[in-house]
């Protein structure tokens, strides 16, 4: 087994590492710890955070790509043949990828969705619903469900007990009773409940997916559940990596414009006014069109379709980053202007403190709330934007699993009677839960961190 990280894999792991280190540094400040404590005092925020962590977990699972060496019979031992690239998530859902049907089938169906022509033994042709290849229907669904729920329950109880055992110094029993009664300062009860519900739901879907196509199959018989789960990575990556790219640019330019003034300010203002005067979708579309032409001209940049679609995702993230830093930059410039007029900055200047030190000690810490709020707010916007861009034809690669592509393909089947609704439904539900969680969390963060609200 050989690790073959894609570009976006490296970026997402670098981001996780950076966030951990940054969080560790930030947690040393008592004020920051208190603010975060305050944010998670709300049950909604806690539940949203758990949901987001679940999505992040799938993203990370899907961001470890590797190849396995497959021994071909009859080949010499020096010739190593590699299987196609896989991720850890593919390993987990391998049965779903393998069990593809011929065409559409509804969720939990045992037969195909449309009639096909079959020839009988006596040579007569008739139309019939063909049975699905990979739905056995042997074991009873009720028994399966019970097993799944029991397993899920056991796993969630183990997880909760592990968390209590790890993270509290008091006696296990007292903590457990306190948490169950909801007497903590943080709503751990809500957190555990959300965790258990999500875990139960996923175990159930997972166990049932061995026997059925839980969310149906698409036009070429691919499992919709598998596609929806694979799409998580695309959506989350676009949401977080775009911010990662635009953040340094926005902060650097915004702070320099606000602090240095003069021609620096003029130049930066000109730059962002110009960029923001171009309608966003058009600029993205133009960028993506050019990128397509470029990639067609350089086939040596990628070796496989997976690498090709990954490269395209990377370029899309870059383009989205270039088009979306202007709003944050404007906010940061205004805030820097305001902060640099306050006495403590004047005092620091009078003491002869260097400009870089002023930025590091006084300005950036006071900008943190703006940055954080815009990161979370942008995240939900970008996840929704992915679907629209894929529809317009300037989104991710058509071969890549993404909610936008799922919607786009299913849309063509709207005219069918009765409707093929499950692809659309799954994509929208997966997207809705993610965006709702992000929106609720960003509301809470805004409420706690925005100084205007605390007055």
């Amino acid at each position, binding site marked *: 087994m050989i690790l073959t990280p894609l570009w976006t894999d490296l970026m997402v792991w670098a981001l996780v590492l950076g966030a951990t280190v940054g969080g560790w540094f930030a947690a040393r400040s008592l004020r920051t710890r208190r603010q975060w404590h305050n944010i998670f005092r709300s049950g909604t925020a806690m539940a949203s955070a758990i949901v987001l962590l679940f999505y992040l977990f799938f993203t990370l699972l899907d961001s470890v790509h590797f190849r396995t060496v497959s021994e071909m019979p009859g080949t010499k031992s020096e010739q190593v043949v590699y299987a196609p690239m896989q991720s850890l998530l593919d390993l987990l859902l391998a049965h779903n990828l393998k069990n593809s049907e011929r065409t559409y089938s509804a969720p939990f169906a045992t037969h195909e969705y449309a009639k096909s022509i079959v020839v009988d033994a006596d040579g007569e042709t008739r139309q019939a619903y063909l049975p699905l290849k990979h739905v056995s229907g042997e074991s009873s669904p009720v028994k399966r469900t019970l097993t799944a729920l029991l397993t899920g329950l056991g796993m969630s109880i183990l997880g909760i007990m592990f968390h209590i055992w790890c993270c509290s110094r008091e006696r296990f029993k007292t903590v457990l009773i306190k948490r169950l009664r909801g007497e903590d300062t943080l709503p751990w009860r809500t957190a555990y409940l959300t965790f258990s519900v999500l875990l139960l739901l996923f175990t159930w879907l997972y166990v049932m997916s061995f026997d059925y196509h839980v969310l149906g199959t698409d036009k070429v018989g691919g499992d919709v559940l598998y596609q929806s789960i694979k799409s998580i990575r695309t959506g989350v990556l676009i949401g977080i990596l775009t911010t990662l790219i635009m953040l340094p640019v926005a902060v650097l330019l915004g702070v320099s414009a606000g602090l240095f003034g003069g021609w620096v300010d003029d130049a930066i203002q*000109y*730059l962002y*006014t*110009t*960029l*923001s*005067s*171009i*309608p966003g*979708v*058009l*600029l993205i*579309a*133009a*960028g993506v*069109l*050019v990128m*397509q*032409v*470029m990639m067609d*001209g350089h086939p040596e940049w990628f070796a496989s379709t997976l690498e090709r679609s990954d490269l395209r995702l990377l370029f899309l993230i870059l383009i989205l980053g270039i088009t979306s830093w202007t709003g944050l930059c404007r906010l940061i410039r205004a805030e820097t202007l305001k902060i640099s007029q306050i006495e403590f900055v004047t005092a620091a200047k009078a003491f002869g403190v260097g400009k870089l030190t002023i930025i590091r000690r006084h300005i950036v810490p006071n900008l943190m709330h703006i940055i954080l709020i815009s990161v979370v707010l942008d995240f*939900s916007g970008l996840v*929704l934007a992915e*679907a*629209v861009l894929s*529809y*317009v*034809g*300037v989104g991710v690669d058509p071969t890549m699993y993404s*909610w936008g592509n799922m*919607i786009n393909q299913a*849309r063509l089947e*709207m005219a069918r009677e009765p*409707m093929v609704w499950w692809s*659309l439904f799954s994509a*929208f539900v997966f*997207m*809705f839960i993610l*965006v*709702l969680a992000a*929106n*609720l969390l960003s*509301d809470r963060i805004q409420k706690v961190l925005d100084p205007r609200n605390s007055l």
Partner: protein
Amino acid sequence: MFAYVIRRILYAVPILIGVNLITFMLFFMVNTPDDMARAQLGAKQVTPALIQSWKEEKGYDKPLFVNTGAEGLERVTDTLFFKESLKLFQFDFGTSDANRDIASDIKERMMPSLAIALPTFLIALVTNISLALLLVLFRGSVLDMGMMVVAVMIMSVSGLFYIIAGQVLFSKLWHWVPISGFASGWEGVKFIILPVLIGVFAGMGAGVRWYRSIFLEQINQDYVRTARAKGLSEIRVLFGHVLKNGMLPILTGVVVIIPSLFMGSLIMESFFGIPGLGSYTIDAINAQDFAIVKAMVFLGSVLYIAGLILTDISYTLFDPRVKL
């Protein structure tokens, strides 16, 4: 004020030159005229002479920014960038790949775009502001909190869902309105009802939340307390004082998009088959017609800058303190 408007229009020129520079770099430097010629002529039977003649025919054989072979001003003016920019500034967008005049296409398609965008904009403005005022009137109540939860939910659903759900329910199942199409005049009303309603509903969550936050910021001000102390009813306080004073932030966000209404909505128009500028742009993107995309980028930024100027003018109408 007249002088101010002139000054703002002059200030717009460098920004538009910047926009041109960006599009020029995107379309000509990454994707050079040689590449374009190859794509247009087909990849196989291309000889350097053919490429040269294609470039001469299109006027793409000039240097990009600086013409070292020319004298005086010609050094700058006899370049590809200058010629292309000049054409755009005269609103001469050239012809599309299908050999149609882009400028007349745009003129023709502006009206259908406006037929969708303008009603959506106006209805959304009125309903969102009224709902927000209603919520501010009952602030802190169950109604307020419930509606805020609903607003977050509306915001979190993809816009594509509203369109698809609307088409399935109202057109496919109940047959109230046709699924897509367009006609001018009163005939067209049945075609635009559904897209307008969907557009209003999809924007409602974010809209109501935004207006509500503006009004809530006003309601804690001293003048509101004074107005209540005078004995004004809460309704009159809201409409006479809070709404009027909230006008300034509202204008900042709203007036700027009015000129851009001409551009239409990409998604709406292509789902409902409306022959406006939005679907024009989508078709151009799918056909990789660079000339049209370039024209739309330029038009979009001109309209945006016009919106910024209009915003400043509108301040003088609503806020007597602002003088231009």
